[in-house]
């Protein structure tokens, strides 16, 4: 195998790595946004519920959640069946974890905006929900952008855990290449470089865009 073939072999896992990262990011987004607003504006019992969720999912190692979903839930007939799919189980586990992280990122952003914007919106006659949608949320995204960038980078890296469930993604391909060629250095080096290339540009872009926008708007 020449180096190009080896590289192509590892890149064969790229679409799956990206799919896990992007889908779990989106799931985390869908979970994180409402949790952040509940944690900020809802009544105490709901806040505690969100707090508990965040603590558990941030505290438990991703690999434990993954294996729990895959082997635990996956073993339950009918309802648990989607989790018997390793790709689904891995993505879902990361999405749940990312939801906890993104909730914190968004909550910090909401706090940064402050109660004044809410009061100002309410004084115009906007309902609480309208104020959140038209005033708080748009500013939240801008402030949260850098944090979201690092969260995405984290997910790309953590997608490598899916290898343990047997998902054929980039790490898995690199490891297989190692077994075939008995070269202990090249496959992992290539994988390392590829992971950096996947995480670095987007995270940096979001960081720069967010900071510039924040400065422009005086947030």
């Amino acid at each position, binding site marked *: 195998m020449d180096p190009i073939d080896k590289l192509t072999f590892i890149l064969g896992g790229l679409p799956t790595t990206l799919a896990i990262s992007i889908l779990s990011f989106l799931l985390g987004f869908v979970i994180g946004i409402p949790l952040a607003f509940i944690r900020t504006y809802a009544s105490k019992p709901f806040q505690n519920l969100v707090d508990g969720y965040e603590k558990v999912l941030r505290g438990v190692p991703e690999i434990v959640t993954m294996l729990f979903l895959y082997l635990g839930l996956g073993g339950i007939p009918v309802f648990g069946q989607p989790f018997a799919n390793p790709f689904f189980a891995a993505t879902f586990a990361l999405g749940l974890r990312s939801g906890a992280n993104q909730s914190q990122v968004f909550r910090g952003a909401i706090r940064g905006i402050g109660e*004044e*914007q809410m009061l*100002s*919106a*309410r*004084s*115009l*006659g906007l309902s609480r929900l309208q104020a959140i949608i*038209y005033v708080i949320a748009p500013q939240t995204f801008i402030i949260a952008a850098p944090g979201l960038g690092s969260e995405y980078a984290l997910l790309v890296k953590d997608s490598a855990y899916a290898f343990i469930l047997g998902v054929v993604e980039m790490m898995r391909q690199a490891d297989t290449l190692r077994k075939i060629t008995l070269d202990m250095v090249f496959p992992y080096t290539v994988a390392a470089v590829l992971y950096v290339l996947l995480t670095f540009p987007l995270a940096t872009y979001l960081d720069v865009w967010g900071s510039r926008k924040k400065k422009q708007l005086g947030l």
Partner: protein
Amino acid sequence: MTDIVLECRNLRKIYGKIVAVKDVSLEIREGDIKLMFGPSGSGKSTLARCLAMLTTPTEGDVFLTGECLTRPGVDLNKARARIGFVFQHIWLFHHLTALGNVELALRHVLKSPKKEARERAMQALREVKMEEWANHYPAQLSGGQQQRVGIARALAKDPKIIILDEPTSALDPELTGEVIDTLRDLARKGTTMLVISHEMPFAREVATEMIFFDEGTIVERGPAERFFTNPSSERARKFMARLIKRTRRE
């Protein structure tokens, strides 16, 4: 006798153990320009916010054009839409342009169609002489310009009354003038207003009544001229003396 626009009866607001507003009754009629002043921390802002139902009074009632707002089940969003409120620290929406700030409530509270909302918002910006700055973000405007947008934002909804809570006290003295000019224009048009302010020349010129507020209650109220010549309460006399001295220094 003209109609009462906004009124409170025996209004009381308690924060923990602190009584911020003590049994205040006040009525504002159409065309009135009430100017409220008094030491900081005396509860003026709390009263203003209670009148706009931005905080719920602990006791007492608030009426907007005869409708009781302190009863349970009242649609407060609807009520707030009919009251304009201008904050001391302005609080424009950072992510929206001047036009966007003024348009927001028209679109989503009054549910005006897009084109109509835009026209009305531009008109409101014209009234505060800010139409040329319509597409600027708050961070690109000076404090005085921001506050004029704040006034346009409150004005655009065609409120029954505008409550202004120290609209110039967060501004540098050189920026105060342009905001006061804007308020003077509003006064000339007969806008019903409750203004908390210590701008005494302005008060003397436009106020239909002045209200001296201290320690959570109205100490003295009456025509502006009387406050400048011969206030009846000792506390008002002392406070006025200090204010006038300060104004002269400036």
